[in-house]
């Protein structure tokens, strides 16, 4: 079972948070739960980062999350897993989460595999763009990875 969403920090009344993830993945069939939280850190490529703004093609992002989830479930032959994925859109301040991936599975190796697979594929396939903000009001879109066919 999957919950996948893009949360617009301007439009949405709520922010991405662990409590919702924990509630969603609660699973009596599961002996293992893993929470991955991607936070905004204060440096990148020797630059002092003050915050990050994300842009996203919301529908395609959610579709991509579902495709990656389906692939992972098949690849690792996992049954009765619960997965919660939310990514922020808009401005995210230093130290705040930009992505939460929570998984619950029967066994720990499945949970580790699933969590790692999801984040690694999201990084290279989900249409999300990151603009970093630096000191003195400077900013820059990060280079990114082409998904051109």
């Amino acid at each position, binding site marked *: 079972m999957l919950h996948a969403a893009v949360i617009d920090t301007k439009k949405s009344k709520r922010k991405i948070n662990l409590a919702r993830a924990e509630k969603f993945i609660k699973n009596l069939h599961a002996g293992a739960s893993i929470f991955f939280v991607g936070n905004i850190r204060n440096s990148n490529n020797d630059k002092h980062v003050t915050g990050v703004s994300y*842009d*996203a093609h919301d529908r*395609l992002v959610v579709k991509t999350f579902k495709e990656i989830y389906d692939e992972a479930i098949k690849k690792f032959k996992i049954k009765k897993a619960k997965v919660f994925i939310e990514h922020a859109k808009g401005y995210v301040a230093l130290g705040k989460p930009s992505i939460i991936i929570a998984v619950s599975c029967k066994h720990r190796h499945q949970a580790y595999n699933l969590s790692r697979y999801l984040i690694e594929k*999201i*990084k290279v396939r989900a249409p*999300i763009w*990151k603009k970093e903000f630096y000191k003195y009001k400077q900013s820059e879109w*990060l280079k*990114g990875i082409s998904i051109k*066919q």
Partner: protein
Amino acid sequence: MKIKIVMHGNCRDIFHKQALQINFDKKVKVKDIRNKLIEIIKHKHLANKAYISLVKASAFCSQHDEIVNDNYLLNNDKIITIIPPIGGG
């Protein structure tokens, strides 16, 4: 044929818009849209190499939320989205 090209990421800053409306005389393929965007950059940004490379490396997404290649013909599509190189997380 009027096509709306929706922008994301760096493309919004390059074209200073969230979407461009462009008229095409004939039936349009994705490669025509890519070439038109490169033409605009040549005209408005003195052929900025980084911007041209970005458009060349970009994917395109149809109204049906499918990534489409350069030969995709926009039959009934009136909207297409440019997907510059991605990097979330």
